[in-house]
């Protein structure tokens, strides 16, 4: 069966520090992968999605970036965090049916 892992689960970082959130999927090959951010009052915002290795689509201009170095690995990064980057970050992979997303447990980021 397929599983998705995200880490770290919780992160507290100072403003201006770098960020790296990692997501890996097991049990499937060449999945579409997604990063969403859930912030209070803003719902679920699509940040990046990837349809294959090295292929990244960015949805929101910001100081975040994403990379897909391997088929089942998706990384969210920042060189310098802002206070507004605080939120709950969710990684997901897309199953065989339209719109069928499977989400990880999320990474809660607090920028101080």
């Amino acid at each position, binding site marked *: 069966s397929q599983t998705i892992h995200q880490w770290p689960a919780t992160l507290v970082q100072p403003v201006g520090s770098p960020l790296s959130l990692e997501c890996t999927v097991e049990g499937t090959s060449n999945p579409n992968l997604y990063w969403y951010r859930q912030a209070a009052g803003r*719902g679920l915002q699509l940040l990046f999605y990837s349809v294959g290795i090295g292929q990244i689509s960015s949805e929101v201009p910001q100081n975040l970036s994403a990379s897909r170095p391997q088929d089942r690995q998706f990384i969210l990064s920042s060189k310098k965090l802002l206070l507004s980057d605080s939120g709950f970050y969710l990684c*997901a992979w897309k199953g065989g*049916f339209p719109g069928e997303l499977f*989400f990880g447990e999320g990474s809660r980021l607090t920028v101080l």
Partner: protein
Amino acid sequence: AQSVTQLDSQVPVFEEAPVELRCNYSSSVSVYLFWYVQYPNQGLQLLLKYLSGSTLVESINGFEAEFNKSQTSFHLRKPSVHISDTAEYFCAVSVRNRDDKIIFGKGTRLHILP
């Protein structure tokens, strides 16, 4: 571009009462529509979906949603809610036959009152 509007950020309802969570979408092309649910301290999971065919779709736990093309709506309903339905509900949309990008609404928090 597609967008989803969930006008109600919170909906309080008494246990065993009916509930409707509203969702409207905007798109110039045909779409797929979805409802996801997020229980407290958990990730999101798919509740139900409309792809084609019958405009009324149902979930295994008693929720239903109806696709209304003329009103561009996909409201979620349940005739009698239970305390276990306490969660946040997200409506989502993707373009038919090009559904790599899935856009979510801001969510509606369903609060069940005893």
